[in-house]
């Protein structure tokens, strides 16, 4: 068994790995059968996690809407395969059994159990085989109770969720859990730093959140997350991720949103405040406190469905008080900060052909021990992501009653800054642009 003593640097690496490599890929045809609706009713582009107004309402309603009281098959499956090319060979193979460039792989195969029990209980649970790591683990979990109620004369959709990642419950595609890009590969080079909310604790925690959408205009959510026992996580193929929460960690969310039929918008704020033992290491008797505070916004023009435009924006400020990591020798500073901004704009033609452009920029305090892979000891990375994709089915229920769909996509990521600098970022002559990545992917759902 590997040692559970983890340095701050290793913790940062673990955080980075989860932050940038984990894909939020999501496609659940069982819900199509349950609702009698094609993929395009819930998903922009008839595929994946980008939600329409109806998709958001279905999620807030606890995944309970169904066309009939009869039995519907709760099982779904999903697979993603890809070919990855980087501008220059990577310094070492990104994973055992692969080369330093031009890798083809099955990224993941997932099974979902999804559905509703009655008018109020519903959810989904995802189990994934990681084709690169060659291991099984639990993946996204969201089990809900929801009800439509009236509070002081105001209609409210209210519910509770048991889930395993902060932000997983969110109805919009601005936060990291469901944000662009909606699929990625562990074989692609990626920056080593991200915020704790950006997947740092995904599938390493359990939480209960209470949410309410007031008069379809004000969305509020409060959640508390804790770290299950190490044995529990290991049994599910997971680990502590960036760290184990010392008690419970609060997650807070509020958003103002409005739907006008052919267009809608959302403006919100969010916060996640975990106090962590880095890598689960309690030996210092102290911990690291992260404070992620952010704002987000989205706009969608859905029109009559023949042309759908969307914009998503997120800015996160993270304050890190690294008392434990500092004592463990993993951070030179006691306090650091990190800033992260993501902006993406997409267009989908008839829910069939789509194009998305995303801009990302991460910057923060320099720290010689926390960012040893950077010649300037900085976390800064920035660039632009492009994606074009085509989705073959999902606009009606004709193919296997709406239970089968395929998306083909091409991604290209351009790095203007990588791990601290544009040129010679590692002190060994590597430039940010060496990591520019072309990825061709096939994504199927059944």
């Amino acid at each position, binding site marked *: 068994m590997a040692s559970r003593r983890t340095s701050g640097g290793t913790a940062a690496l673990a955080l980075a790995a989860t932050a940038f490599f984990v894909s939020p890929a999501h496609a659940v045809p069982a819900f199509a059968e349950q*609702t*009698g*609706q094609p993929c395009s*009713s819930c998903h922009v582009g008839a595929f994946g996690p980008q939600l329409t*107004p*109806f998709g*958001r*309402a*279905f999620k*807030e*309603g*606890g995944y*309970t*809407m169904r*066309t009939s009281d009869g039995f519907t098959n709760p099982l779904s499956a999903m697979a993603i395969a890809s070919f990855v090319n980087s501008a220059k060979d990577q310094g070492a193979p990104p994973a055992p059994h692969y080369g330093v460039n031009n890798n083809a792989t099955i990224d993941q195969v997932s099974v979902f159990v999804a559905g509703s029990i009655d*008018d*109020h209980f519903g959810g989904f649970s995802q189990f994934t085989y990681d084709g690169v790591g060659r291991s099984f683990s639990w993946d996204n979990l969201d089990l809900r109770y*929801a*009800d*439509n*109620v*009236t*509070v*002081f004369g105001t*209609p*409210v*959709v*209210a519910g509770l969720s048991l889930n395993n990642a902060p932000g997983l419950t969110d109805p919009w595609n601005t936060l990291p859990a469901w944000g662009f890009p909606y699929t990625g590969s562990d074989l692609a080079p990626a920056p080593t730093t991200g915020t704790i909310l950006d997947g740092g604790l995904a599938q390493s925690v359990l939480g209960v959140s*209470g949410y*309410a959408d007031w008069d*379809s205009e004000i969305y509020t959510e*409060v959640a*508390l997350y804790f770290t299950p026992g190490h044995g529990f996580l290991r049994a599910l193929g997971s680990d502590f991720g960036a760290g184990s929460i010392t*008690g*419970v960690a*609060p997650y807070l969310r509020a958003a103002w949103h409005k*739907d*006008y*039929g*052919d267009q*809608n918008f959302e403006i919100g704020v969010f916060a996640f*405040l975990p*106090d962590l033992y880095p890598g689960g290491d309690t030996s*210092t*008797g*102290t*911990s690291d*406190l992260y404070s992620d505070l952010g704002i987000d916004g989205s706009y969608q023009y*859905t029109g009559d*469905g023949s042309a759908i435009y969307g914009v998503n924006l997120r800015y996160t400020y993270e304050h890190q*008080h690294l*008392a434990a990591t500092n*004592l463990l020798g993993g951070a030179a500073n006691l306090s650091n900060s990190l800033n992260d901004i993501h902006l993406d704009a997409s267009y989908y033609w008839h829910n069939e052909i789509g194009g998305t452009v995303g801009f990302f920029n991460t910057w923060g305090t320099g720290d010689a021990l926390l960012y040893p892979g950077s010649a300037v000891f900085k976390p800064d990375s920035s660039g632009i992501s492009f994606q074009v994709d085509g989705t073959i089915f999902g606009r009606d229920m004709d193919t296997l009653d709406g239970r089968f769909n395929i998306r083909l996509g091409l991604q290209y990521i351009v790095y203007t800054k990588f791990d601290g600098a544009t040129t010679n970022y590692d002190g060994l002559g590597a430039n940010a642009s060496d990591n520019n990545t072309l990825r061709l992917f096939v994504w199927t759902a059944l």
Partner: protein
Amino acid sequence: MAKTEYSTEGVSRRQLLRGATVTACGAAVLVATAMQPAEAATVTQAAAAYQPTPKGDQRCDGCALFMAPSSCKFVAGTISPSGWCRLYVKKA
């Protein structure tokens, strides 16, 4: 080094959490007493892009989700039999 070095000024993190939890519970009780149970989940008419007029030969009274005389399984509010929305599913 003290574990809560960062929380010794003013209100500690633990106190803040405790206060937030108590406040949240209090608010939940208050809301619960004011709540009136309603029906299963539905979407707003705007989210479904509902219109009170048909779209071609597609009308609400020909949709599998329509519940006579004037409601819908998925869409909230009063629904016209001759209306239409984006969730239209032809009645079998």
